[in-house]
């Protein structure tokens, strides 16, 4: 950034009103939101660690429960820490997030699906060794 640009930055009000300088009330609201996020995330983390070791629930349900808890915690982080909300100045961020989630879903389920089929259809290794002999 050139010096003149920096100077323009300093003088021009190029920020959302009330964002870069918070008053006491806004700061308190911000801290409150962070505390809510911290509380929810802590709760979800503790439940996750408890569920992983417990014998109280039906065992095959544990991975599903862990996945749900993790997704919930990611949502808590997105809303209370990253402030990706449904507000009007966040529409582009939410759309980008939706696209990112789509790609992540395709990469992970696609890989698992393809590799499971390859694994099931591949000749056992000792057969391949015999054919090469």
């Amino acid at each position: 950034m050139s010096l003149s640009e920096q100077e323009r930055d300093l003088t021009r009000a190029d920020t959302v009103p009330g964002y870069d300088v918070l008053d006491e009330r806004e700061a308190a609201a911000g801290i409150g939101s962070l505390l809510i996020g911290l509380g929810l995330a802590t709760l979800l983390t503790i439940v996750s660690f408890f569920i992983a070791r417990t014998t109280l629930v039906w065992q095959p349900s544990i991975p599903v429960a862990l996945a749900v808890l993790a997704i919930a915690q990611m949502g808590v982080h997105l809303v209370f820490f990253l402030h990706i909300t449904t507000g009007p100045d966040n529409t582009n961020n939410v759309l980008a997030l939706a696209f990112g989630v789509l790609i992540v879903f395709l990469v992970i389920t696609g890989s698992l699906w393809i590799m499971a089929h390859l694994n099931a259809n591949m000749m056992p290794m000792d057969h391949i060794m015999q054919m090469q002999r």
Partner: protein
Amino acid sequence: MSAFQAAAGRDDANRLRLGPAWRDRQPLAEHAARGPVSKRIIVGYGFWIFLLSDIVMFSAFFATYAVLVGQTAGGPSGRELFDLRNTGLQTACLLLSSFTCGVASIGAQTRRGSWFYGAMAVTFVLGAAFIGLEAREFAGLVARGAGPTRSAFLSAFFTLVGCHGLHVSAGLLWLLTMMAQVFAKGYRADILRRMLCFGLFWHTLDIIWVAVFTVVYLMGVAT
């Protein structure tokens, strides 16, 4: 202009840039009242796109790990190797550091030096503790003969968790840079935008860690 575009455009305060053709069709008063979108929102959006691309890269590592998790080549599995107490400590460190990072952002926005520097210092200590715990875990695994060369499972494990650790290490360097920049240059608009990006980066690392401790450690021990 279709009816849909017209409907979407009217209450969308979020378009990054209005094309000339579009601008001409908008009522002048409405356009003047709205003005261009602030640089802060554009910078945040651009950095968010980068973070999403980073998350997509991590998803490839997660897919690799999920495919290879059973391929232990006769070596130890996650159930025998993972110590959930250590993972819990790491999780606590990173979650608390995410909170203090948010406090530091608010400190910067309220121009309160003690909040900003104090919270940034705590964030650094917690992040460094996280890296220390991870390094100790890795050293312990290698000492037990369960290094990355032992099996495909362990290769994938060290790649995934180590990549996250590298991101946290880079974040720690960035954190120190931000403290130095605020110290040297003050709470300037461009410095505050960098602080915004740093906050997004640090919180995103915590999101990825949620996936790591769930998929790698908790599911590794539970199943």
